[in-house]
């Protein structure tokens, strides 16, 4: 127990960590201010707010018809992937019926300002916080694991079995400090956001409102309806996004741990982690240009980077970017499981390997 306290103390006394969190907070403030030019118009709309002023759209939408725009396109060279896409859009018909029954499309949300509001919260701010969390956990893991190497106490600490078990103290200290840092950063950022954007009357609106739509340069549709796999109010959607965001942080924490446990050299660890973040992003553009290998593009969509990149479309069908319903959730669970296995294996490798 005393080791975990020491590990926490080493991390929390790091001035650079505090500077990093402060810069992130300032950055988030900048993002909030830059995306809040229509917040005063929202206040005007909310003065005469009517909860249901949208249009009926779900009655005319057919899941398979929507899916036909995606079927024989990116995954055409793989029968399995095309079949999975077909199945995904057939399964979408039930949620569309449910949303139509609940009249989710009639929900006002934020009226004509819905796309701006949704983008400001879920695309800009939440995505920024997610990326900051991933970076923070990366830095904390690297900092704590290579501290002994920098301080030249490596041989002393890791020369015994008890010494090597310190990795668990390091793991949990990173988890505690990282989560604490991100909770403080998120709370302050969202507090500032909700001071500028008045969400009081919006929380109970349905995110699948006809005023909400997806615009994506990769989409064959100009404005695609925001069709969620289940009915979400804005509050529920926000909570689900936060939970998935924490899941992503935990998954990245485990994958970073696995990387540092099997690597002696800091440059290799940094390279692997940087590659793990950057390559999937480039893969979105490059793998699309390889229609003969659709499996590459499909596999890439399961990565953490791609999930974060399309976070503003979570819990919807997501067009080309998913082949399974709730893929973003499944992907995070998969990463958590692989991460846990990876850490287990990584620790056994670490326990046996030489330090020099």
């Amino acid at each position, binding site marked *: 127990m005393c080791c975990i306290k020491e590990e926490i103390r080493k991390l929390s006394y790091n001035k*650079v960590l505090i500077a*990093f969190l402060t810069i992130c907070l300032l950055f988030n403030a900048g993002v909030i201010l830059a995306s809040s030019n229509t917040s005063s118009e929202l206040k005007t709309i909310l003065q005469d707010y009517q909860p249901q002023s949208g249009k009926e759209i779900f009655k005319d939408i057919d899941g398979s018809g929507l899916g036909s725009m995606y079927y024989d396109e990116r995954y055409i060279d793989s029968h399995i992937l095309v079949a999975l896409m077909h199945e995904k859009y057939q399964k979408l018909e039930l949620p569309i019926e449910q949303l139509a029954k609940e009249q989710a499309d009639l929900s006002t949300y934020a009226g004509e300002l819905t796309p701006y509001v949704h983008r400001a919260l879920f695309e800009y701010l939440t995505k920024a916080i997610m990326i900051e969390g991933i970076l923070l956990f990366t830095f904390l893991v690297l900092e704590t694991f*290579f501290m002994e190497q920098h301080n030249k106490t490596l041989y002393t600490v890791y020369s015994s079995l008890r010494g090597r078990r310190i990795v668990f103290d390091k793991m949990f200290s990173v988890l505690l400090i990282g989560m604490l840092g991100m909770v403080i950063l998120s709370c302050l950022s969202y507090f500032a956001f909700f001071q500028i954007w008045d969400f009081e009357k919006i929380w109970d609106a349905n995110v699948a409102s006809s005023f909400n739509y997806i615009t994506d340069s990769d989409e064959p549709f100009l404005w695609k309806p925001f069709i969620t796999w289940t009915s979400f109010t804005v509050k529920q959607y926000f909570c689900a996004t936060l939970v998935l965001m924490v899941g992503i942080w935990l998954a990245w924490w485990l994958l970073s741990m696995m990387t540092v446990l099997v690597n002696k050299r800091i440059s290799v660890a*940094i390279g692997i982690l940087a590659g793990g973040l950057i390559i999937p992003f*480039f893969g979105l*553009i490059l793998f699309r240009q390889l229609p003969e290998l659709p499996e590459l593009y499909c596999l890439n969509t399961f990565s953490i980077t791609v999930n974060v990149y399309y976070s503003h479309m979570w819990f919807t069908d997501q067009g080309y970017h998913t082949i399974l319903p709730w893929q973003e959730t499944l992907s995070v669970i998969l990463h958590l499981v692989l991460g846990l296995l990876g850490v287990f294996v990584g620790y056994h490798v670490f326990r046996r390997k030489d330090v020099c």
Partner: protein
Amino acid sequence: MVLQELKKIWTPMRVILLILVSVLMYTSFLSPNVRRFDTGGNGFDAFQEKMRISKEWIENYGDTIEPEEYSKIEKGFEEIIAQISVNMSQKEIFNECGVGSYEEFLVYETNAVNGKEGFDYEKYKEMREQLFVDTSYNSVYLQEYQKMMVDYEKAAVGNNAILPWEVSIYTTDFLMYLSLWCFITVLLISAPVMVNDVASNMNKEQYSSKVGRRIYKVQYWCTIVSVLFTEIIVIVAGMAIWSTTDTFVFSGAGLNSFMSLREPSLNIWYADLFTLFIVIALLLGIGVGSITFCLSSRSSNVISMLMKVTPLAVVAGMYILGLGNAFYKNNVFYGLVHIPGIEVIMAGVIAVVGIVVNVANYKAIAKSRNM
């Protein structure tokens, strides 16, 4: 000393990393802008025909269209129509369908496509195939020609340059990503050097004497020279690639084109876009390279350096991505401050800040007695 410092910067791994990053950046972001100008493929593309017409007008009338030249353009269109009509009169299918002119063909086309009685769709298809057979024109060419004439008539006074809006947008996008490419190479060169010396405590030995403290200057200049050298290679490569698009024919055209609804914030030519972006990239390279060098020298290990450099990289990256629509009034920076040339001014400020920060850091190192 200089050679040793350059060897520290130009390690084989770093060179390989620079090449890999360059390949990724080019294939992901720059090549799509270049491919838009590809003339291959079947069929006639509206953009390609617009480019063709623009180049013809530049060849005949120069970089701008004056009112008296516009009347020649209108006459030119009439001559093309007359030539097509003569061509039509020599083909039986047009006589069969009672189509004597291009305008009559367009009417027949509308009615045949809408399935109106008396207008045979198969005959329309045959007429469409025969229409431009002995000419160098096509329907898309005529369409774009007419659109360009309408654009000229609607354009504000003074907006008479020949520069398709697509060319200016794709060019600024290309140059923006080229600047991003330069920026990433700058980070890769300037970030790791000093922190390795600090992490291995070599700087304590270096700064233990007055002569030794001057090594900071040597290291700084080696870094900046390396940064500029890499940027120049990237810029030359970028310009060589862009020259394949054949858009340098618009070099003398102003940004105040009648074919664009965007209003330029600076009275410059198309060629000046390249010059200004190169200046921005070089100034940014000096500024960001200098700040990164300073942060790296103040970091006790690589992780500490990464934590300091990452926010800088994000902010600088966002500045570069904000260069979309640069030198037009709808640019995000111009929209905030309404100062013409703000894009270059910001890069200049970053360069000055970087140099000042390093001068201050050097003076602090030179004065300090305790390391």
